[in-house]
């Protein structure tokens, strides 16, 4: 999922003062285990969904979190291990990594009582791929054969059904892809692949306001800008039976407000503590504080498409710049421990993560940094501009990175703020930059392929660098055609090993979930998506 900067409001963060943090440790013991009441609901900090609640239309956190609780796809990821596990699917078989035979479990039901059958998946995917329905996530279906007919690059669609999807009977269907993707089942955990009940297709707009899914929680009400209320679905068949009575998603305008509510137990679980509380939240919350790894990485990308940076020599300069950044100090001081220094292009905890893939180039070594930059012919104009969006709280670390580069190499480095996320993205995608820019990747699914194929392949949708390396592309293609996910993973590790030599992007650090919970709940654990294990939260009796 892309870094949803739009959902995070930073206005109050900018004006908040350290004053708040003084003397406000709310007492009331920790989250020790006690009796819990499976009928009670808990509240979670949310933001108003920006689109109707349709699975293929939510790619921002506000709507996405709600939908992943209302719907359940063929597979999902175990919150503690990030490994894939079967949910609606009984098994997914493939012999050639291109045709997948899906067998569903019997007995799954939608919240309206209708059964979850193979056609509910096929119809939902066809509907999501259809451009007439304006679904943001439609490109997720692009691996499926016939996607081009339903969703052509131009002109009228030739069909409204993807030819690769065939329903065999109520509990079986096959998915044929247009090319080999050995890890396709990993993608199936994304919410866009959720099934939809038959009623949905008659009134998509109405169902977008009052969604009917097959997930652990069913929709109760949505009062705009205030809350979305859900309750436990008694007929839920998944492996993760809810231990609570439901989730109330409370809309907050700022994380400061949410944090104040959390401290006084008016809010049970929050998303991420505000920057102003980072220094003190562990003191404030005691053993109710959470510090967990997240499958997300922050990078500095380079404009390889642009004359000054395109020559192969400049890879040395980028390696040198990377070695001039003191990641340890910056993550501890400026970022207050909310990030962990990166040693690879794949985030920690992701299947296939290889510690140290970046090698020495991600280690702080000013002497070698200087030498490498010199060997590469120096930074063009001896000046580096790092473009970032000023509305995402990036200024502090960009300045720190620049200071680190300036002090250690003598290269003049400056932050180049764009007013907001939209403006920065527009400048990046239209290739209007000269030098470096902030970039990042949040996992769509916890597999290394997602961090590599979608970002560094020639012409990949998020390859904003213009990076093109035949060796990398070959390794990635070979990995996609592998016979098993295990082979895919090691194939992509080989592809990742190509990156240090060209250094299209400098890995900086991995994100962490810095959060906490109230005195009313227990057993709150966060997964690598930065979400709590929803169904496992226990509300104290």
């Amino acid at each position: 999922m892309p870094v949803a900067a739009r959902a995070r409001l930073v206005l109050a963060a900018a004006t908040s003062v350290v004053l708040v943090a003084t003397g406000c440790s709310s007492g009331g013991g920790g989250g020790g285990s006690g009796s819990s009441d499976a009928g009670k609901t808990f509240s979670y900090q949310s933001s108003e969904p920006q689109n109707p609640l349709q699975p293929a239309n939510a790619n921002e956190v506000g709507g996405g979190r709600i939908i992943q609780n209302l719907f359940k796809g063929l597979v999902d990821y175990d919150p503690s291990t990030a490994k894939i596990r079967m949910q609606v699917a009984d098994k997914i078989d493939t012999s050639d990594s291109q045709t997948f035979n899906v067998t569903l479990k019997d007995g799954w039901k939608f919240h309206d009582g209708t059964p979850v059958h193979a056609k509910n998946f096929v119809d939902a995917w066809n509907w999501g791929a259809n451009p007439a329905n304006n679904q943001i996530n439609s490109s997720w279906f692009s691996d499926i054969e016939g996607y081009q007919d339903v969703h052509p690059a131009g002109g009228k669609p030739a069909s409204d059904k993807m030819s690769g999807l065939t329903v065999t009977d109520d509990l079986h269907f096959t998915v044929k892809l247009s090319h080999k993707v050995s890890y396709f089942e990993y993608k199936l955990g994304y919410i866009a692949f959720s099934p939809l009940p038959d009623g949905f297709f008659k009134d998509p707009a109405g169902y977008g306001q009052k969604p009917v899914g097959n997930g652990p929680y069913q929709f109760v009400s949505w009062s705009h800008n205030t809350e979305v209320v859900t309750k436990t679905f008694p007929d839920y068949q998944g492996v993760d039976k809810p231990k609570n009575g439901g989730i109330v998603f409370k809309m907050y305008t700022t994380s400061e407000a949410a944090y104040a509510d959390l401290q006084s137990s008016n809010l049970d679980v929050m998303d991420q503590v505000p920057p102003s509380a980072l220094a003190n939240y562990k003191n404030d919350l005691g053993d109710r504080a959470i510090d967990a790894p997240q499958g997300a990485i922050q990078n500095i990308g380079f404009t390889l498409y642009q004359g000054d940076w395109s020559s192969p020599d400049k890879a040395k300069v980028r390696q040198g710049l990377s070695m001039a950044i003191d990641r340890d100090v910056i993550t501890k001081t400026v970022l207050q421990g909310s990030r962990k220094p990166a040693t690879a292009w794949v985030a920690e905890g992701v299947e296939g993560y290889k510690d140290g893939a970046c090698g020495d180039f991600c280690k702080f070594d000013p002497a070698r940094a200087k030498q490498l930059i010199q060997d590469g012919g120096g930074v063009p104009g001896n000046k580096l501009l790092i473009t970032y969006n000023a509305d995402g709280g990036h200024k502090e670390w960009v300045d720190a990175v620049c200071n680190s580069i300036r002090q250690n190499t003598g290269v003049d480095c400056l932050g180049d703020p764009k007013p907001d996320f939209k403006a920065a993205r527009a400048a990046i995608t239209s290739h209007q930059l000269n030098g470096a820019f902030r970039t990042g990747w949040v996992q769509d699914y916890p597999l290394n392929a997602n961090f590599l194929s979608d970002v560094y392949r020639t012409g990949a949708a998020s390859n904003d660098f213009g990076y093109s390396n035949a060796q990398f592309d070959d390794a990635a293609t070979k990995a996609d055609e592998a016979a098993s996910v295990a082979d895919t993973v090691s194939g992509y590790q080989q592809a990742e090993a190509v990156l240090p030599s060209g250094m299209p992007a400098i890995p900086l650090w991995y994100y962490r979930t810095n959060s906490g919970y109230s005195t009313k709940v227990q057993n709150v654990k966060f997964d690598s998506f930065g979400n709590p294990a929803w169904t496992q939260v226990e509300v104290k009796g």
Partner: protein
Amino acid sequence: MGRFVARRLLQMIPVFLGTTALIFFMVHLLPGDPLAALWGDKAPDPVQLAALRHQQHFDEPLIQQYLDYMGGLFTGDFGKALDGRPVLDKITEALPVTVQLALLAFGFEIVLGIGIGLFAGLRRGKVFDKSALVFTLLLISIPVPVLGFLFQTIFGINLKWVKPTVQDSTDITQLVLPAIVLGSLSLAYVARLTRTSIAENIKADYVRTAVAKGLPRRRVIGTHLLRNSLIPVVTFLGTDLGALMGGAIVTEGIFNVQGVGHALYQAINMKEGATVSGFVAFLVIVYLAAGLIVDLLYAVLDPRIRYA
């Protein structure tokens, strides 16, 4: 009087048209593409993007978009936001909340501000006056966000007298704390304006005459002194009401009030022309109406002012 009001109402039309046009085009000038931003860090799907652009009429010339928008406005259609919900729904959700909050803050600053100002002005140089000056100076020098977080921490988290944030924005009792924070700065101004005005007018001839006539002190202060002294205060309050309605964004953020400030901030952030223009159109009307009421109040307060 009637002609004056009619003329002022007519003057509102060009002001209204001008401000909405200005806002509409200014939102368009904001950098970035709001539709492409829906895809976040990912490259937008070109087919979908073109379809959305068409749906939002972004593919038409700007002037055509503006004419369509204004045409809709006069038939009561405020257009649709990017999330597909009618802008009017958003306005009718947020506006009552902000009106409640603003009126609470307004009432708070009027009652307390004029009260403090009156007593301080009458007892100029005494202990009450001196402490009122120090108190208001303190309010003026503390930025609103600091005061907001301070009150939230003290009353919400430490003392637990109130919930630190507003749980239900439509419940007026929960809006009291944010209203106090919101009104505190203006309270200081109102108190100081009133004090100075009273202290000045207390030496005026008409007050001496009133006292010499043997009028009771109550009547001298209430009818003659206070009424005449309120003119600068009313001028300030008129503009302040408009500011309270549109400018409560920081306070709304701290206390999680889902009002106009927050809605407007989000809409600007997402470059939603229709939503921003819709809210601003309402705010312009509030401003203009407040201005008119202030002018009419002049005549009520000061018998020397007459509108022909």
